[in-house]
């Protein structure tokens, strides 16, 4: 057991009580990161800067100016811009890019006194479900290093699971927080679209992207989300809505809570052992007083096709700025402008990114826009309606986060469709802008299974509450992967 096994709730109390210093925690994290280098969780480790921040946090605590997160080491997914520290997005394109500003999420957590120890590995530009699409190489799953950690926030999820850092940030466009959290056996929350500012988060699909916390427990996610959330004048899509006290809502009684189990989330394609683990978890919630109701989300089957039109369309436009002109990768010796564009982008982007740019360009093209993009938007509307009908009957929706546990590295890289299906239960929440959380709920073949709980818009406190009550009644989230042991 190391100090990093503790939750940030415990660490916050220990820091405030003077039992441990931020410097000690930060040094422990840096040591763990160095020891677990083979997991490949980090693109950048900022030792010196982190220690300076830790010392500043310690001084702040000594002066009585600290808050619940002051002095807590954390890692940011490498697509949050960080002033003066490389922001690569897991891409060769941005291997040389140092942003001159902090993302709002980074700035808020800095303001709260968190210490950034580094930037985590990820699928290139957040496109992927296995972390195999990184320019910096794949990340290993701490439960089985031959398996993928999920993606795209795979570096963050693996780093938390392997106890390199107590908490990390991630982003979720189609499941990129929830799916790796599930595959790595930790807790990950995707907030409602508009809850957390997207400013400084390098955009993949602007109408779907949301930042959120990854931690061992829901309680920690609640603490972190409280610091991340809230209106930001720099993001027109962030809502000007008061941030509730997520922590105080955690302990609410859940008796009488109506949980909907969508028939479509338990159909073909779902691993039966995963299904059993999810049902067992639901039974625990029933034991806590919740009621279960089978529901239907009849247009659920539209979510993957709709997602793979909308997300690539937006990405094809969002990634146009990477042209080799102002920053980022530029090919050697371009002969003219067109050559500069073609080779800089051809050499700077990886295969999956290029695939999605091409799909997105196609679906927005004259003559195809109506048939694809517009139709996908209509499908998206139908998916939203399904959810709203469901929420008229139930308080939250529960089901598996991913249809299977972690798969072997290389297993799905040649088959993009099978890879995309890994997010079949998570895409819909992004299309509908709903909050969702994944919590560990068991093991299949010694690999973690995730239970997903989806709430209606801006009910993060509710799904955190359900997740927390579940975690009080279970200990799956406390399980330590083999990679958490000192090497």
């Amino acid at each position, binding site marked *: 057991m190391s100090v990093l096994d503790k939750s940030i709730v415990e660490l916050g109390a220990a820091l405030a009580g003077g039992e441990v210093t931020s410097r000690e925690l930060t040094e422990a994290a840096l040591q763990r990161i160095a020891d677990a280098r083979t997991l490949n969780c980090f693109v950048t480790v900022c030792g010196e800067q982190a220690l300076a921040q830790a010392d500043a946090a310690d001084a702040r605590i000594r002066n009585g100016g600290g808050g619940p997160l002051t002095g807590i080491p954390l890692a940011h997914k490498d697509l949050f811009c960080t002033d003066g520290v490389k922001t690569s997005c897991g891409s060769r394109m941005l291997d040389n890019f140092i*942003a001159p*500003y902090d993302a709002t999420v980074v700035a808020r957590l800095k303001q709260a006194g968190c210490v950034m120890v580094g930037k985590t590995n990820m699928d290139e530009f957040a496109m992927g479900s296995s972390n195999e699409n990184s320019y910096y190489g794949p990340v290993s799953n701490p439960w089985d290093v031959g398996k993928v950690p999920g993606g795209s926030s795979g570096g963050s999820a693996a780093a938390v699971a392997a106890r390199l850092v107590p908490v990390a940030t991630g982003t979720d466009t189609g499941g990129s927080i929830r799916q790796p959290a599930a595959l790595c056996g930790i807790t990950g929350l995707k907030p409602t679209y508009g809850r957390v500012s*997207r400013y400084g988060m390098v955009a993949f699909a602007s109408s779907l992207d949301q930042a959120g916390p990854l931690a061992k427990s829901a309680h920690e996610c609640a603490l972190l989300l409280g610091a991340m959330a809230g209106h930001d004048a720099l*993001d027109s899509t962030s809502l000007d809505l008061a941030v509730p006290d997520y922590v105080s809502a955690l302990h609410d009684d859940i008796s009488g809570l109506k949980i909907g189990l969508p028939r479509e989330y338990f159909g073909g394609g779902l691993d039966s052992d995963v299904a059993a683990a999810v049902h067992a978890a639901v039974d625990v919630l029933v034991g806590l007083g919740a009621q279960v109701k089978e529901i239907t989300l009849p247009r659920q089957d539209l979510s993957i096709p709709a997602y793979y039109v909308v997300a690539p369309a937006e990405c094809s*436009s969002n990634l*146009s*700025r990477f042209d080799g002109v*102002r920053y980022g990768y530029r090919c050697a010796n371009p002969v003219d*402008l067109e050559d500069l564009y073609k080779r800089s982008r051809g050499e700077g982007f990886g295969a999956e990114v290029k695939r999605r740019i091409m799909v997105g360009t196609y679906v927005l093209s004259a003559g195809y826009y109506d048939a694809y993009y517009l139709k996908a938007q209509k499908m998206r509307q139908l998916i939203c309606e399904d959810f709203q009908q469901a929420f008229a009957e139930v308080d939250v929706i529960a089901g598996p986060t991913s249809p299977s546990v972690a798969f072997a590295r290389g297993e799905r890289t040649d088959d993009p469709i099978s890879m995309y299906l890994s997010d079949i239960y998570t895409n819909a929440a992004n299309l509908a802008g709903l909050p969702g959380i994944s919590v560990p709920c068991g093991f299949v073949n010694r690999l973690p299974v995730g239970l997903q709980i989806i709430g209606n818009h801006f009910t993060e406190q509710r799904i955190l509450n359900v997740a927390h009550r579940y975690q009080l009644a279970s200990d799956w989230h406390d399980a330590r992967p083999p990679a958490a042991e000192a090497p």
Partner: protein
Amino acid sequence: MRNSWETVIGLEIHAQLATRSKIFSGSSTAFGAAPNTQASAVDLGLPGVLPVLNGEVVRMAVKFGLATGAQIAERSVFARKNYFYPDLPKGYQISQYELPVVGHGSVTIATEEGSTRRIGLTRAHLEEDAGKSLHEDFEGLSGIDLNRAGTPLLEIVSEPDMRSAAEAVAYARKILSLVRYLEICDGNLQEGSFRCDANVSVRRRGDEELGTRAELKNINSFRFLEKAINFEIDRQIEVLESGGEVVQETRLYDAERNETRPMRSKEEANDYRYFPDPDLLPVVIDEDYIAAVRATLPELPDQKRQRFVDDFGLSDYDADLLTADRDTADYFERTARAANAEYKLSANWILGELSAHLNAGDLTISASPVPAESLGAMLNRILDRTISGKIAKEVFEAMWNGEGDADAIIEQRGLQQITDSGAIEQVVDEIIVANPQQAEQFRAGKEKILGFFVGQVMKATQGKANPAQVNDILRRRLQDPDS
């Protein structure tokens, strides 16, 4: 040959909105700063940045819409226009596509024949400007200046309602006048804050269907607009009459050669892949907002022109010229107020002497060294006969050169008109005595000789004698020296 063809012209005008900051960032829009010093992270299109709409641009667009009787959209949407160009930092331009903020409207122009024509406006939409590529001074490379990137533009699209280059110019002038009245654009063509692209096609007279059009770009003055269109009309007619077909294309106007020529086709073979920008919310405008903007509208050029005709008795022509821009109209009204409400006299002086001086010095009326009130005060000296109109020109010249106000100059130079009849009679008598032969000719009926005497009297009085009095007295004394 040209008579059997009809020309059809529509204009797309890009008016740079006169906001202090850019449309989606807080950077300054001031012209002429050192390259890239007015480009923020948002303007540079850095990874992760997001646009935030400057509310002022919406207010300005609504003002324009109200002034042209247009529909204001309850809900309008920003879209991305995707294409690659080095001075387009994000790889897309944020513009409005399917749902523009301003819908159908119209303006009225005066035609060469002296009648008026109504020109329809298809729409006006908001968008951001791109940066500038600089191809000189970089030894085979290009420089990029992103100061202009993100500058707000209102793109004003007309219907294909114009039938000649002169009408197109009249329309462009009308829009220019309007945006200046509304104070939403400084209308500086040289600095590029008011740019015109022309869609030109021709068809045989009587044909219903429109001909294939060419879009003319790179026109930075009204003179060039007229020349470019006329060149293009001739070119298209020539192509058609020799059995060819007009190609739909973008053509650049070359002012030095006075010709249009096609842009490289590669550059225009763009599929812009428009889609709603997910980073920006739809712009929702309600009745209260519109009413509040309407309350801020100034008197518009057409209304002002009519008032000048109706209330001040000015000719249509003079009223048109005086109301073409708001500063001139204001100057006129202030002058007339100071000149005892002598509107016609004020108009004559502003459109004559003052305009000539302004043009010679390449000055706008607001930079005139002679303020309206000073001009008005001088006109009062004409009205009270202290000076003649002729002497007034000398006084004005001195005022222009900064020698003080009219009264001081008249006093200093002794330019007061001689209106004392006795003094004039004395001069007249002396001249009649000195020129008995001419006096005899007058009495014998040679009326024309009077001019000789007037000239002599004026010479003797250094032009200061009141001309009307001189005439009167001369006639009287020549007929009857004892009268």
